[in-house]
């Protein structure tokens, strides 16, 4: 019962929590029960919390998440393009509560791996038998782009007010104006995200501001689903012609931005935007790094079979914060990783062998409301190396030069996927 008073725990957990695991001491192996604390109620954390309860309802699960609602990044580009309202992509935690997850709206400020406890901003402390950490990403501020600057020049790479701000700026921009997007370096959350955003903005401009231009200044030499996006941009937005709405520059050396004039200074030239969307480079969420789960790096190494940290025992890291290559940093992957992690956590609590994992990822993108493309893959553990690997021969991109019917189906599937994954995660 290291360092926790019963009163603190009850206060932290909002009262009424069964204290079995805490009152009868903490042990790693047991016939049932145990207390799992989950940090973060996003795609990874919410799925893990729910599935641990589904797999073994005798395990107590406490999910710590500061926000009362969660705005999904998937679909946030659709809001930017005017296809959805922000309320339509906003989730609550009522579904998780129905599964018996104790949802505590607070922030974890400190993790003590030796005492197996977490400290909350409001003052309480919780102990855990196993801890699941899914805090998403943090940004690497710099090059003139700071957190303060992001209040005027949105990154919109965490959905919510940032998404709304970018949408409002695009609405207020005059026809003939220039929208500039600066995608981040690898690795970052949602590899096809910047190109989907460009597509959605192009769709909006085509309808409402046909003289407006989009300039992408990408430090990288290629981007996810590049061939498919460009095929779509050629069909829909005149890409590659004199009248192209989109100018995509690659291997651009970004020197700095001047927030006052919304100018991007590159190694070669200066670009002035009416609306600027700067997406900074990324690293694991602060609590993961502060706990030491990233070691000296930006991201957290894990054992793919369990998602247990290879640096700190008893702590599992899932979602964007983890190094789960070749799985991408996506909501779909975070959900899939969370299910493998949940099954492993339950097995470890019961001192049983960890089940053989299996993962899927599909990243859908809309090039237009009725034009969807995807990249999919099935993953397994390669038992020769113990690492996560693509199943050879599986997965891949939507076919090139496919008939419009295929693109339309994938657009319907993209929207269908959003409904199902959010119900699977928070429902």
């Amino acid at each position, binding site marked *: 019962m290291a360092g926790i008073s019963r009163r603190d725990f009850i206060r932290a957990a909002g009262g009424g929590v069964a204290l079995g695991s805490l009152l009868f001491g903490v042990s790693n192996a047991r016939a049932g029960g145990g207390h799992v604390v989950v940090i973060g109620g996003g795609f990874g954390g919410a799925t893990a919390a729910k599935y641990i309860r589904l797999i073994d309802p005798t395990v107590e699960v406490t999910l710590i998440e500061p926000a009362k609602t969660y705005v999904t990044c998937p679909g946030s580009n659709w809001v930017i393009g005017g296809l959805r309202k922000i309320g339509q992509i906003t989730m609550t935690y009522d579904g998780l509560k129905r599964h018996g997850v104790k949802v505590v709206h607070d922030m974890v400020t400190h993790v003590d791996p030796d005492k197996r406890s977490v400290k909350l901003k409001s003052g309480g402390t919780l102990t855990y038998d196993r801890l699941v950490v899914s805090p998403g990403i943090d940004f690497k501020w710099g090059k003139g782009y700071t957190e303060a600057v992001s209040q005027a020049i949105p990154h919109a790479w965490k959905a919510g007010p940032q998404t709304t701000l970018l949408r409002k700026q695009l609405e207020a921009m005059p026809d003939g104006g220039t929208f500039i997007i600066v995608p981040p370096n690898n690795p970052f959350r949602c590899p096809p995200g910047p190109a989907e955003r460009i597509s959605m903005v192009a769709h909006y401009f085509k309808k409402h501001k046909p003289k407006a231009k989009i300039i992408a200044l990408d430090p990288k030499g290629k981007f996810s689903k590049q061939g498919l996006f460009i095929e779509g941009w050629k069909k829909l937005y005149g890409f*590659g012609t004199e009248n192209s709405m989109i100018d995509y520059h690659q291997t651009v050396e970004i020197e700095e931005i001047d927030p006052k004039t919304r100018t991007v200074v590159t190694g070669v030239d200066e670009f002035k935007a009416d609306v600027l969307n700067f997406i900074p480079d990324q690293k694991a969420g602060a609590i993961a790094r502060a706990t030491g789960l990233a070691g000296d790096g930006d991201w957290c190494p894990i054992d793919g079979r369990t998602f247990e940290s290879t640096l700190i025992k008893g702590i599992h890291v899932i979602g964007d914060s983890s190094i789960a290559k070749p799985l991408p940093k996506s909501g779909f992957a975070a959900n899939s990783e969370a299910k*493998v992690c949940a099954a492993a956590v339950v097995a470890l609590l019961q001192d049983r062998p960890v089940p053989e994992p299996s993962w899927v990822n599909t990243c859908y993108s809309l090039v237009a409301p009725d034009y969807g493309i995807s990249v999919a893959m*099935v993953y*397994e553990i390669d038992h020769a190396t113990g690492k996560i690997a693509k*199943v050879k021969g599986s997965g891949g991109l939507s076919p090139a030069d496919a008939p419009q019917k*295929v693109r339309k189906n994938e657009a319907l599937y993209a929207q269908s996927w959003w*409904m*199902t994954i959010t119900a699977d995660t928070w429902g």
Partner: protein
Amino acid sequence: MNKHKKSVYVAVALSAAYVTAACASPEAGKTALKAQASAHRSVDASGEAIGRTCAGCHALSKKNYKGFVPVIAGMEKDKIVEKMKAFKAGTAKDVTIMDRIAKGYSDAEIEAVAAYYAKMKH
């Protein structure tokens, strides 16, 4: 004025090469090869472990469901197996994405995941 114009054309040229590479015959040949050599997992996963991943796209209940992806929960086992094998072999009609995904599983895994969904009420 804009010196980056050059890199746009590079980008277009690059992308054309990319598209060609993705659909021209060498790649198509590779795909055919892949189809034969697919899904040799070192260890099979359970129907449950695989089934949970399907739930990212396939809703587990028809109640209030307004999506377009078919609900497979409660479907006959043989029907699921037949469909998955057709996807895996590349003989299914009206394919969107399942041909790419079905290639990720051994025949035993397809049986197992079909049994898992067949037992489910929806």
